[in-house]
């Protein structure tokens, strides 16, 4: 009896009408063509306008056709899928166009000459010159900031996860959260007032790396904390039950298990501060000459070099090209760091191989 009513409700049984696999592509091509056609007819200039029209047509079109052929449930499913695709394209287009622009404009002057020369005897309006001084400055400032921030950040995270109980831990977590939200210019102003105005130290790469370290610490604390929390408690107990003291358990079992993730977090923090411009502008001051000593006198750095070259160039000429080439160098530098981080994470990850 119940069998009869069930099949009565679903006349098609298990098999329903389905649109072919190429259906979404056909709708996408159709929507794009229609979008182009409408904007040409209406005399719209901007490519954003026809793309938006096409996106809307794509979503509405696939819903309408699918609802007629496949039924409402499948149509809703297709709408969700279409929206995911549109959102994906919206996210990828700016990224791809940014990389394309930078590569296209940057490769013009990016060569070994550019990487190994400074701007010391080259006026901003002349061709030639390079980013050696800025690259050196960035490497030193970021290196010093990392040396300061990694121990503080990792140890803070270890405290929070392994030892922290009660009010102190809650206060530390709160202030780490607050620090995550500090705008970089504020970190720069803080170091400026403390280090340069009150302590009367000069502008230097080190002053910049102090501000960069302040920006780095909360990022490292957060990511390391998450990674340490992922280490199963069973491993800690196994180690403690062997009569291993807590500090050695943390050092030899907990941290090695999480080291891949911790390294990735540190690398991402480095990538984040490498592009910081505001504190560097305030504290490192900038120079066209090579200054290998980060502890005295102004240095240069890549983000600041890009800013200065662009602002002195008026949007064209050799300075403009140098700014793009330096931007490309910066992107490449961060990309290499990320690849290294992934490599380390894979190499150090707990192995399950048989």
């Amino acid at each position, binding site marked *: 009896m119940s069998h009869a009513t069930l099949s009565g409700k679903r006349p098609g049984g298990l098999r329903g009408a389905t649109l072919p696999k190429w259906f979404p592509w056909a709708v996408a091509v159709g929507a794009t063509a229609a979008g182009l056609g409408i904007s040409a007819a209406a005399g719209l200039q901007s490519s954003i306008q026809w793309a938006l029209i096409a996106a809307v047509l794509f979503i509405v079109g696939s819903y309408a056709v699918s609802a007629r052929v496949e039924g409402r449930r499948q149509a809703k499913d297709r709408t969700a899928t279409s929206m995911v695709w549109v959102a994906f394209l919206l996210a990828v287009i700016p990224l791809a166009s940014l990389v394309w622009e930078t590569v296209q404009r940057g490769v013009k002057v990016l060569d070994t000459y550019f990487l190994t020369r400074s701007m010391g005897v080259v006026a901003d309006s002349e061709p030639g010159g390079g980013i050696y001084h800025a690259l050196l400055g960035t490497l030193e400032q970021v290196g010093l900031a990392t040396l300061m921030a990694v121990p503080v950040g990792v140890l803070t995270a270890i405290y929070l996860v392994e030892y922290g109980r009660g009010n102190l831990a809650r206060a530390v977590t709160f202030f780490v959260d607050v620090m995550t939200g500090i705008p970089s210019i504020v970190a720069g102003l803080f170091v400026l007032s403390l280090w340069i105005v009150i302590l009367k130290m000069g502008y230097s790469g080190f002053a910049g790396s102090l501000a960069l370290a302040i920006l780095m610490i909360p990022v490292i604390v957060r990511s390391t904390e998450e990674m340490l929390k992922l280490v199963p408690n069973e491993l800690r107990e196994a*180690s403690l039950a062997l009569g291993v003291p807590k500090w050695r358990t943390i050092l030899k079992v907990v941290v090695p298990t999480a080291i891949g993730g911790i390294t990735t977090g540190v690398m991402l923090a480095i990538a984040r501060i490498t592009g910081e411009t505001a504190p560097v502008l305030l504290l490192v001051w900038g120079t066209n000459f090579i200054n290998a000593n980060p502890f005295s006198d102004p240095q240069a750095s890549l983000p600041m070099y890009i800013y200065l070259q662009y602002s002195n160039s008026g949007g064209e000429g050799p300075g403009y090209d140098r700014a793009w080439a330096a931007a490309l160098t910066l992107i490449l530098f961060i990309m290499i760091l990320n690849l290294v981080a992934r490599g380390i994470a894979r190499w150090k990850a707990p192995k399950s191989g048989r």
Partner: protein
Amino acid sequence: MAKRIDVSGLNAYYGSFLAIEDISMTVEPRSVTAFIGPSGCGKSTFLRTLNRMHEVTSGGRVEGKVMLGDENLYGAGIDPVAVRREVGMVFQRPNPFPTMSVYDNVAAGLKLNGSYKKAQLDDIVEKSLRGANLWNEVKDRLNKPGSGLSGGQQQRLCIARAIAVEPNVLLMDEPCSALDPISTLAIEDLIGELKERFTIVIVTHNMQQAARVSDRTAFFNLAAVGQPGKLIEIDDTERIFSNPSVQATEDYISGRFG
């Protein structure tokens, strides 16, 4: 090596919640003592008080006396780390260290404590793996990750790791509950061999297992949820399973509750 455990008037708390109340018992050396009882009656909690692992849980604290030989584990000046070297533990789920090889897992207790000589280490690792009936299966893959072994092998690896530090007592918290019958048999055989050298305490939900492996059995129960767990009785295993002196024990063993 093996030592007697003498517990008297032991209470264990989680924060302000009294989990087990007023437990007194004696565990004989070179014997297997099994703890049985319904879930939540405090068997595992009691087991963990025997090597001071209970206080690792946040809010965990213990009152009373646990004598190991002639020393009170909860006496003044006792170092919990030293206690855990004397009283080893095997957990419910196999938990080899994922970053370490089979060899390093077994050697972990010695290596992490920093007190070993390289030449001795090879011997100890081989002896422990043979002791855990695992040597023949892993001797060719000592440098492969320990997490690549099967579940039963991992559990025997954890037993090898625990006996490598030569404890006096070995605590096992449902060591077979995540394993298939064949691996369970391997571990039960192993328990029979290990009791020649160690005092063994095992928590189990499997009453046949308790009957098979143990010399003495303790039955734990709790009056109601939220009430503390109590030791109902402890006796020779044969007696517990044939003619227990408390009605509640008989009801539990024969499957009649309440």
